[in-house]
């Protein structure tokens, strides 16, 4: 994501980045996946593949996460939630699109109810094709991501953002409708009972 103002990384940022590179904490988000990729993510945490030997740890909240593992083709209902989860993740943050659906929409690429890929909503740093992805492919992607990124040299936004970010406007209009409690989804607003 292009932020307008950036500052140079301080010593504290460098330390955070250094630690994040050696022990990325991941949050798993399902945005309408068939559960194939979700099970592969869980699979990679089992003793057989054991991503924890690389310091990868599954966390419960985006506020603790460094890397978001997003599965699924992003349904219209999930899109604003995905955006919110992304905004709640502290920087530096990285997004991995896990699976064919998250990468390009896959078999759901032209459906009316999906947006066709995570990059339609939030910026993605690494795509993993595969249906479902092999646990080794997931390890490979995390490895490639952390090798490629200079986490301790990353440019950070000048100020912490407290309000809803302007990037919300990049969502399709009807997808945003459900995100704001003050403006309910179109169908409810018009009194459509379904």
């Amino acid at each position, binding site marked *: 994501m292009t932020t307008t103002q950036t500052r140079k990384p301080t010593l504290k940022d460098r330390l955070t980045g250094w630690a994040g590179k050696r022990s990325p904490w991941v949050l798993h988000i399902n945005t309408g996946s068939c559960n194939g990729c979700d099970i592969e993510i869980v699979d990679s945490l089992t003793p057989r593949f054991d991503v924890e*030997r690389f310091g990868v740890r599954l966390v419960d909240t985006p506020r603790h996460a460094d890397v978001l593992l997003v599965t699924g083709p992003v349904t219209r209902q999930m899109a604003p939630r995905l955006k919110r989860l992304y905004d709640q993740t502290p920087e530096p943050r990285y997004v991995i699109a896990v699976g*064919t659906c998250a990468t390009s929409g896959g078999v759901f690429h032209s459906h009316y109810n999906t947006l066709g890929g995570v990059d339609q909503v939030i910026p993605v740093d*690494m795509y993993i094709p595969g*249906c479902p992805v*092999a646990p*080794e*492919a997931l*390890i490979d992607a995390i490895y490639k991501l952390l090798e490629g990124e200079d986490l301790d040299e990353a440019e950070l936004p000048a100020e912490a953002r407290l309000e809803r970010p302007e990037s919300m406007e990049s969502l399709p209009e009807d997808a945003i409708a459900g995100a704001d409690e003050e403006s309910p989804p179109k169908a409810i607003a018009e009194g459509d009972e379904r």
Partner: protein
Amino acid sequence: MSIVPGRVIPEAIRTLFRGRVTSRYPAEEPDKPERFRGRLEFDESKCTGCGLCARNCPADALEVTREEDGTITWRYDVSRCIYCGQCVETCPVGSIINTKEFELAGDEKGEFVREHQFERE
């Protein structure tokens, strides 16, 4: 369920000599099953350009176009492929095969598209 010491101790001793179960993946090659379906490999010398693979593809990952001068373009989008193997089954001349390659992760979406261009009469 209660823990019976008479069962736990023999199990613990057995586990001591069983070795590790964790695969040493990045250091060693993973043992994928023999019929693992990974990225497609295309042999353009065999292809006749009939387009059956593209018609059978459930994810629209394949696209075969034929120009008037006989130039055939075989376009494969790795990011959309679901590795079902339908194209491999369908191809009448066997020009498509599944490889065991699965380390496909990349940060550029444009790199996922592979194109082959060749001439046929």
